[in-house]
């Protein structure tokens, strides 16, 4: 249980992420950049869909975001996306709004951490 708490405290698990790319840091950085590039649009799409109350599309979008997030071993963020997907699928708009607030926060934390990772490495490489 304490381990789980520890996992949730970190925005993402770098060791797990590296395992998923078989220690290919170049690929890792590429995926992080892809994520960071696509993130603003993904969030905007989620927000808009939620505002429209289109829960079917919301579930699909949340599912997609969840897939990307899963790669990084970002547990808290993953759980939030899962909650949003589940709420949308269940047709529960108020639960979806709550999950969305959580997800947006977690994605921001994750993005910041990922940014730091690639930013740090890029400056080192220079």
């Amino acid at each position, binding site marked *: 249980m304490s381990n789980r708490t520890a996992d949730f405290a970190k925005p993402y698990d770098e060791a797990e992420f590296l*395992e*998923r*790319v*078989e220690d*290919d840091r170049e*690929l890792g950085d*590429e*995926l992080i950049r*892809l*994520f960071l590039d*696509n993130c603003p649009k993904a969030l905007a799409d989620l927000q808009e869909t939620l505002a429209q109350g289109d829960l079917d599309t919301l579930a*699909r979008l949340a*599912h*997609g975001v*969840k*897939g*990307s997030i*899963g*790669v990084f*071993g970002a547990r808290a963020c993953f759980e939030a996306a899962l909650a949003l997907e589940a709420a949308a699928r269940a047709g529960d708009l108020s639960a979806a709004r709550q999950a969305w607030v959580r997800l947006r926060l977690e994605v921001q934390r994750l993005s910041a951490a990922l940014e730091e990772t690639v930013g740090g490495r890029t400056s080192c490489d220079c």
Partner: protein
Amino acid sequence: MRLLIADDDIICRRILEKLLVKWGHEVEVASDGVEAWQALQRFDAPSMVVLDWMMPGMDGVEICRRLRELKRDIRPYVILLSGKGQKKDLINGISAGADDYVTKPFAPEELRVRILAGERILNLQAESLTMMEALRKQATHDYLTGLPNRATIMDVLRREFARRSRGGQAVSVVLADVDHFKDVNDTFGHQVGDVVLTEIARRMAMEMRSYEYVGRYGGEEFLAVLWDCDTQSACALAERLRRIVEGRPFDSPAGKIPVTMSLGVASTAEIPDATQETLVQLADAAMYRAKRAGRNRVECAMDASGAVLPP
């Protein structure tokens, strides 16, 4: 191996592509279900697909269902990839036709070995297909000459008769028997006899057009089945067959061996009511007439007026 990756999420797609290439596979990429389905329908479709469950256009489960309906000897092997980690989802996926199921986010090592397992199954399928094809060939063809065997050439004749009952065109048969074949065997040995039969079969097969068939009917007997062919054309073909055998003596370790054939022709053009068995019997009778008349000749079951000649 050639693999298709189908995932609408760019990050998942990229990670799959990079890993699979690293593992030595040739990779094709589709970014939604419709694109994936198009790639899988091609005759040169990749032999395996790593398929995301949830995709816009067409989802992975629907693709699995459609793949199952394809009339193919070997269908692509499907590894369904999904974030759904519940037991009922796995059951639904496999029930729809997926061969394997991996949950996202996946551990690379697990996917790598599951692909290997799939490759083993595909190899087994390919082997058993090759074997079935070889057995089918063995069962329907003559081992020595490679021509259709008696059962097969009679099947062909039956088929042509069925076609005739719909279209009305005449079917003719030519029965050819090698003259004094026993002497070839007795003088030069059975191995030389086999070489002679094989060469006769080769020459006759070369003479056939794409819709004409020749099979080994018996020991030294061959039966040709000719579709949409009247008696005159059948006799002309029989004469050509006679000449290509007589014309060039057969090479053997013992030197050149002259060989001839006697041939009998029968056609439904003159005997529309004949069954396929009767037609072959008539050709056989005509062939015996050719033997009695001195061999190395063609005889027809009917005379010029169309009357059936006595054997």
